[in-house]
């Protein structure tokens, strides 16, 4: 089989498996997997900037929250139905990521990390400040009646799983396509050696700007979907913790691999889920596992798989 054939086969195979699983999984894991697919979409967005372009952002919670609040505030206060609210979430996410990109991309390295972190904290504080509308830390529930998209009630588990699946499949295929285009390959080259790319005649600033907008918009789509599918919006989703999560998921799964974000999210979710069933000190188990993985699979699970077995993995 050709390389392209294998790549398409593997990714479509995963999607087919996830589609089929909804018919066999018990309710508990069914719900978990829907959540994992949404969070993995967030990680896919993060991976485009961090894994493929080499820009370490500590502020992606801002984009996730922009999508989530763009959707939920318009539902709550402007009386939007689900579809236009979802679109608003995406537009707000794209606008916020473009604005932050224009400012943050004037810096590089550690300064970039700090600038993104600070802006995300400013976003978090803004949500707390406008508690009258956002209900701050406590957050607010989006009623089941408001979570009907094109006639599908997304509070109902099967519909929710299917919606999460569609979101994840879209993000995965966008990511897969993107990194195989000349544009995506230029991003990878920027990650490897930006100065050289510039001296090959590419406008590296424009490439990084586009990468950050795509990354932020995908993250915002996950945030909006999270609000819509699970019916809740709260300031904790804008906190620094939610900027660190996608970094962890991507590092564990394999930065700069298309499947890494999903594998990392799945692994981390069930690691915490299973270890908390054994002991209340579950973070200890999670922590030790993470240390072991970082020591023995520094390129992440999918990254190691690519290094050792499947060199063709995108």
């Amino acid at each position, binding site marked *: 089989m050709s390389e392209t054939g294998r790549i398409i086969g593997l990714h479509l195979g995963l999607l087919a498996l996830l589609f089929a699983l909804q018919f066999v999984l018990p309710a508990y894991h069914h719900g978990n997997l829907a959540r994992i697919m949404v969070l993995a979409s967030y990680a896919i967005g993060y991976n485009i900037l961090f894994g493929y372009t080499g820009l370490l952002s500590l502020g992606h919670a801002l984009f996730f929250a922009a999508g989530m609040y763009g959707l939920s505030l318009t539902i709550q206060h402007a009386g939007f139905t689900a579809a236009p609210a979802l679109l608003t979430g995406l537009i707000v996410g794209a606008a916020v990521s473009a604005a932050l990109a224009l400012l943050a991309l004037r810096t590089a390295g550690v300064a970039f990390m700090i600038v993104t972190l600070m802006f995300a904290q400013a976003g978090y504080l803004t949500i707390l400040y406008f508690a009258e509308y956002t209900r701050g830390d406590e957050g607010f529930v989006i009623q089941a009646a408001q979570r009907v998209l094109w006639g599908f009630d997304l509070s109902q588990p099967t519909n929710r799983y299917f919606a999460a699946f569609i979101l994840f499949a879209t993000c995965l295929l966008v990511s897969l396509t993107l990194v195989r285009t*000349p544009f995506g390959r230029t991003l990878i080259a920027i990650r490897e050696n930006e*100065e050289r790319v510039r001296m*090959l005649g*590419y406008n590296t600033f424009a490439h990084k700007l586009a990468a950050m907008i795509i990354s932020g918009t995908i993250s915002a789509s996950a945030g909006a979907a999270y609000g819509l599918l699970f019916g809740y919006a709260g300031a904790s989703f804008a906190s620094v913790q939610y900027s660190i999560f996608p970094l962890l998921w991507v590092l564990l799964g394999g930065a700069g691999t298309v499947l890494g974000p999903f594998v990392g999210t799945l692994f981390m979710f069930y690691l915490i889920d299973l270890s908390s069933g054994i002991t209340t000190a579950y973070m200890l188990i999670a922590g030790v596992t993470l240390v072991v993985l970082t020591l023995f699979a520094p390129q992440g699970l999918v990254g190691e798989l690519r290094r050792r077995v499947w060199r063709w993995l995108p």
Partner: protein
Amino acid sequence: MTLLSTRGLTKTFAGLQAVTNVDFDLPKGEVRALIGPNGAGKTTLVGMICGRLAPTSGTVTFEDRVITDLPAHKRVQLGIAYTFQITSVFPRLSVRENVALAARRHIPKPDVQAAVDSALERVGLKNRIDEDAGNLSYGHQRLLEIAMGFVQQPRLLILDEPTQGLADSEIESFKALINDLRKVTTILLIEHNMSVVMELADRVTVLNFGELLAEGTPQQIHENAEVQAAYLGKG
């Protein structure tokens, strides 16, 4: 016809004059060597020509257009290709992808593969095409760097110490490569290896302490007493 010229080009780093008031003209089709002792300002001068460094004062003109304020990538798009003094390939990408990146910006998609193949054929790296560039020997990475330069079909190819670290046999094939390329492009060569300069250059420009010291044919430069004193050593 003059392809490139600089007028009064000056660069100061924190009070240190790295390049002072350089007026430099490069006619189309020439192979020009730029020589000078270490620290003479050669890399700084070409850095200002290709846009990696902003000059403190002075102008750069390329094909009758003043490009002093253009960012580097725009100058490259106009046809100035620069190969780095310190090898700067993409080590974790394949040899093919390294050259394809250089080619893709201006060559239509269906023709990229053929351009990559022919560039690698020319530098003798065709059989290493699928290897990671980081696995190549230093000399081969230099050749890859040169392939990335000329696959852009530049109007001006700037090579910054291309033979540094090459074996004698590799230097011979480098000379043959430049003699091949001189038919299609103008070349500015920063070079320490005098046999390369004497054999390849149509004319030689000498920099010393950031200033233009002399200019002439390789023979004239070889016989120039000032150059001998500054560069080749007194005696």
